[in-house]
């Protein structure tokens, strides 16, 4: 793989919530065209990292640079080149898809007409043309997710943050979306992909970063991780690295309680 320019750079990133230390010093450099699988157990600071990168969380220590610009409260220019799919489908669902998508497009500095036309065509590709003028509140979970995906890509960003982007999508849509990611990466977009579904991360990422307890505990391609840990699947590597080996005992306990009745 050709190493491109540096897109994202974290130096000794630390973050506290009160007395609780969430991030304990993250160092990370991401190059253009990479698909990063960002994984880790619940509550170890995955979402916090993404929120800091997007400027949603302040009060951190260390250096954060995106496209060579330092992330601060004042600097908002870099956000123009970023797309974001949040973990929880947060959107103004009283609006129609058209109203919401054109609004987001305009916030990114697009012209209304251009945003409208582009959004309409993208909705059509996803099979949502008929509901373009309906309120998002009436959508199913998968449809909302598609709207979120469109809203993150409408302005043709260079860097994508995806937090559990496949939730609610059916198998066919998942195939389409995975292909979209592959094509985008081939064209030099950088993708930061955070998920709990290991099979998907294993397949789509060309670099996997495992975070545990506020620190990076593994960094490399899937094959590199496999070589280091002698385990078969990413799921097993994940279990091993996060020190979790009691899944069988827990499962047995669970079933035993179920059968008591």
């Amino acid at each position, binding site marked *: 793989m050709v190493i491109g320019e540096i897109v994202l750079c974290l130096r000794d990133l630390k973050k506290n919530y009160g007395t609780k230390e969430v991030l304990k010093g993250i160092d990370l450099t991401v190059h253009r065209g990479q698909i990063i699988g960002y994984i880790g157990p619940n509550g170890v600071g995955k979402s916090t990292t993404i929120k800091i990168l997007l400027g949603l969380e302040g009060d951190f220590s260390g250096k954060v640079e995106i496209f060579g610009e330092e992330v601060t409260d004042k600097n908002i220019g870099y956000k123009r080149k970023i797309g974001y799919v949040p973990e929880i489908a947060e959107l103004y669902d009283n609006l129609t898809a058209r109203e919401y998508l054109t609004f987001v497009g305009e916030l990114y500095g697009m012209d209304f007409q251009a945003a409208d036309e582009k959004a309409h065509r993208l909705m059509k590709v996803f099979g949502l043309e008929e509901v373009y003028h309906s309120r998002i509140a*009436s959508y199913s979970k998968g449809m909302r997710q598609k709207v979120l995906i469109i809203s993150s890509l409408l302005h043709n960003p260079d860097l994508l943050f995806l937090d559990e982007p496949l939730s609610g999508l059916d198998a066919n849509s998942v195939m389409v979306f995975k292909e979209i990611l592959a094509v985008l990466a081939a064209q030099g977009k950088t993708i930061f992909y955070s998920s709990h579904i290991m099979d998907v991360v294993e397949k789509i990422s060309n670099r996997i970063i495992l975070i545990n307890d506020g620190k990076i505990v593994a960094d490399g391609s899937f094959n590199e991780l496999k070589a280091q840990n002698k385990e078969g699947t990413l799921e097993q590597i994940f279990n091993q690295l996060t020190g979790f080996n009691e899944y069988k005992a827990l499962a047995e306990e669970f079933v035993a309680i179920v059968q008591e009745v």
Partner: protein
Amino acid sequence: MKNFQTLKFLDWFRRIFESFGIDYPVMRKILAVKLTMDGRRTPTIFNQQAKKKKKPEENGFIKSLGMYVLLSLFLIPIVIFGQNYLYQMSILFGIVMFLVMTSMISDFSNVLLDIKDKGILQTKPVGRKTISAAKTVHISIYLFFLTAAIAGAPIVAGTFKYGILFLLLSLIGLILVNLFIVVLTAIIYFFILRFFDGEKLKDIINYVQIGLSVSIAVGYQILARAFSFVDMKITFSPSWWQFIIPPIWFGAPFELFLGSHSNGYLVIFSLLALVVPVFAIVVYNRMMPSFERNLQKLTNNSGESKRKERRWKQWLTGVICQSNEEKVLFRFSDNMMRNEREFRLKVYPALGLSLVFPFIFMFNEIQMNSYAHLVSSKWYLGIYMSCLMIPNAVTMLKYSGKYKGAWIYKTAPIQSLAPLYSAALKVFIVNLFLPVYLILSIIFIGIFGIKVIPDLLVVFVTSVLYTVICSNYLKGTLPFSESFEDAQQSGGAKIMLALLLIAVFIGIHFAVTFIPFGVVIYFILLVVITIFAWKQAYKTIWNF
């Protein structure tokens, strides 16, 4: 999205916003989206198609302003009659503050406490300044309309009487009052969020909403009567304790500039009216970042909730529920009704009103005759007024904010759903009706003496019977299974019929009081009928 008049007006001030470093076009777009959303209610999948009639989008808030305008007409006499500016204007500002504050909490909480904004707007290339400016302008637009509705009529009337200086003082005063209220509300939220979690805050907001609707309804009754009592010639001398009553600060400038006398107190009051709001804004700006951080608590409920096992309820469940299924469903309905805020919002104001209504009628009687006359009369039948809430509350039983959870009834292995109805109605009687009834009964026994106890018992059994009759409203729909969006505000003819029925019950009760032992016989008869009706309802109304 339509082009809002308000925003067109705002365009005049474009320069001012831009001079503060705000991206005006972006702010305008955010506001347009916000106003559009305010004009809509969240539709559900089902009525998206069904209700696609050509209904122009209306902002519910703007529509509700009519009520405030009506109320404001009552305020005109306060301003015009009398000579004591301090007294009159303090009352006016007191009422304005109360209404704006309660309305602020009940209607704008979602603006102040919005956490969606953060994820959606801050991830976009939009400056913080622009976002917070949009938020501020959004609140200001509503506050402007609200204040204009409440204070408009009295201020115009006052200007005609006292001249242009009055208008000027009022405008400045109202702006300062609004600033003060916004900051005060935010600070109150700040402290609640600091010590409690989001659920507690939502509960508090809910109770304020309930209180607001009760006090506005009662306020109409009282304000309309108040003028016969109020003596406008009252002398009102400033003293130290008035420092802690904000409306008096705002009333003071009027006395100072328009009135005949001025003294040290008035000067200090007037200064407070100016300094406190400005100071509050400074504090607010300082607190804003940590306020935003605390807002995150709204989503995650960290506080472990303690569960109180209430013995008496367990005991009661055993007594009034026959089958095991009914007991289960009783507990379930109990939890649903106590926890669901939307349900409380729809039903509790009616509870408050039914506590007050019997007395409003009795006050009329006292004014016309005398208290002694009232005690010896049959006005204790006024307690039937508390039954007026039953039809409305029973209709509400079928709605729930989380109505989609109703699939559980279908998948659970329950033979008949009839116990669900009886359980829900029993919970309604125990949790909602009984407290109102008991409070009223105690007061009535205090007024009319213990001789009315048999009559009160008759009223209770009648209400139970009445509840069963009203449960016809539930026919065909399961409790907690429909969205509140579908609720028709006025049940119309059906509710009228139910109310007429109450009149019939009062008539019968009134008649039997003339027969010796009539009340006791009537009571026994009612118990038998009620038991029979409940059994019948099991077979016919609730089982389908």
